[in-house]
């Protein structure tokens, strides 16, 4: 009882932190925007953590699904669709629908091969996006208008945007926790440790992994869709392998296999970049070694540093 209570302390604090950002800063647009950006990326990172942290499936193509969600919103917007549920639904669907065939092929491989085949698919989608000349090709595409919902404008002001994203983040996080703890999650986790054992226990492990992969894709799609609304812009850069790499860094930095670690990681990466860049143009000279130190410090990343003694 007390263990689980303590384990939910950090996520609760995180949630409360995000909820209070606008209050504490007096609605300072800059900070709120920063928080929105962090939360969008955090949603995608949670999706990745689901398969990476629990299923040990290191996808190096996560940005492709993120980008798919973003493009779904971008493309539908240019065709005049503005309904938020429709756009966001389409974003989720786009991510999930792409993840299905890609996962089906990729899951034939293991370990590092899996990393690389997901990268390959990510790159194919990246190049496809750059050749979408009808939608801006490499230059990307500006959204003509923001999505609306029942006559309201949920993404119009930074403040309402903030709380909408926060609600979705909480939903994804809680959903993720439920999945991890469920029977499905148990099979996924066990498969991450010893696949042969799980098959011998009677599970068609690939099917479970595929479902997890599709869920992660859908979550990334959601994040991408929100991000498109946030930047009012979509470009192939959203699908680049560097972006996939960033998602991995976020998850690993925050600590794999905890979900809230993904949120911490996203915040860590974005804030560090933001702060360090103010000191020096050569901020990577500091950021790089910080990552190295984090890696040396061990697997649980930021979550362990912050939550030391809470386990």
């Amino acid at each position, binding site marked *: 009882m007390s263990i689980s209570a303590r384990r939910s302390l950090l996520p609760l604090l995180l949630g409360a932190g995000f909820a209070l950002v606008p209050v504490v800063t007096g609605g300072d647009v800059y900070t709120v925007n920063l928080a929105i950006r962090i939360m969008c990326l955090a949603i995608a990172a949670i999706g990745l953590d689901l398969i990476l942290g629990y299923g040990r499936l290191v996808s190096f193509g996560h940005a492709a699904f993120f980008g798919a969600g973003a493009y779904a919103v971008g493309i539908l917007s240019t065709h005049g669709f503005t309904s938020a549920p429709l756009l966001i639904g389409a974003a989720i669907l786009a991510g999930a629908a792409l993840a299905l065939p890609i996962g089906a092929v990729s899951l034939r491989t293991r370990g590092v091969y899996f990393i690389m085949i997901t990268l390959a698919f990510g790159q194919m989608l990246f190049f496809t996006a750059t050749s979408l000349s009808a939608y801006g090709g490499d230059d990307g595409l500006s959204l003509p208008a923001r999505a609306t919902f029942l006559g309201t404008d949920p993404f119009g002001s930074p403040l309402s945007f903030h709380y909408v994203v926060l609600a979705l983040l909480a939903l994804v996080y809680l959903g993720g926790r439920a999945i991890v*703890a469920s*029977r499905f999650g148990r099979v996924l986790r*066990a498969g991450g*440790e010893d696949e042969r*054992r799980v098959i011998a*226990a009677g*599970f068609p492990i690939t099917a479970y992994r595929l479902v997890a992969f599709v869920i992660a894709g859908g979550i990334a799609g959601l994040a991408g869709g929100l991000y498109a609304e946030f930047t009012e812009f979509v470009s192939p850069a959203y699908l680049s392998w560097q972006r996939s790499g960033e998602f991995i860094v976020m998850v690993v930095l925050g600590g794999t296999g905890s979900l809230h670690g993904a949120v911490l990681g996203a915040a860590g990466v974005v804030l560090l970049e933001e702060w360090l860049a103010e000191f020096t143009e050569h901020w990577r000279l500091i950021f790089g070694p910080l990552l190295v130190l984090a890696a040396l410090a061990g697997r649980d990343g930021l979550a362990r540093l912050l939550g030391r003694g809470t386990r």
Partner: protein
Amino acid sequence: MTAPRPILQLQGLVKHYGRLRVSDDVWLDVAPGETHALIGPNGAGKTTLIGQIAGEIPSDSGRILLDGADVTVERPHRRVHRGLARSFQITRLIGGFSALENVALCAQALEGSSFRFLAPASRDAGLNAAAIAALAETGLAERADIPAGRLSHGEKRQLELAMALVARPKLMVLDEPMAGLGKAETQAMIAVLRRLAGQAAILLVEHDMHAVFALADRISVLVEGRIIASGPPDAIRADAAVRAAYLGEEV
């Protein structure tokens, strides 16, 4: 009087690795409730045969019938659902899971679909009860909450057995369950297997002749991929060819 239909039938199984014939026209059957020991020198092909039965290693030719159904090309997890359970020669456990959760995982496989996303599995009373019962049967009840990775070698063996047991299988295929067990644990394991003997058929691969002769109803001897002898323990013990190829003077 007709003999009951065997739970497992191997009909002319063959497996090559390159030019090496590892299973060479193997015929074998296991009757319901029978404890059938498979012995043979190192490298005779016992583990390979188990791999073929479990479906991890595809057979080059021959047929495998499980409870009457042809499963030769069926995928491994389907065979589990038909009542097959196996243990591994080198223990394979989910090291990060507690002993209980390892067993519960196996219980879950048999209990309908595991595509259930919301209810927390660790609080699933049905699964936990089944798991605890299986742990108790193998004498691990007290270690239920210890992460499997931290169990001693012997305890891991016991856990493997519990994982096979919980599925209430019709046939258990055990690859050297006594390996690494001390005298005392071996005795305990023999007792457990003996208790099980009525419930499920067992195909037992083991180099501990004490255990084999204590448990087996029937023994088959595999040498270089071929069954060279098959029969009741006494007959096997007396078989000159078996002594020469395998037993030596030990028994």
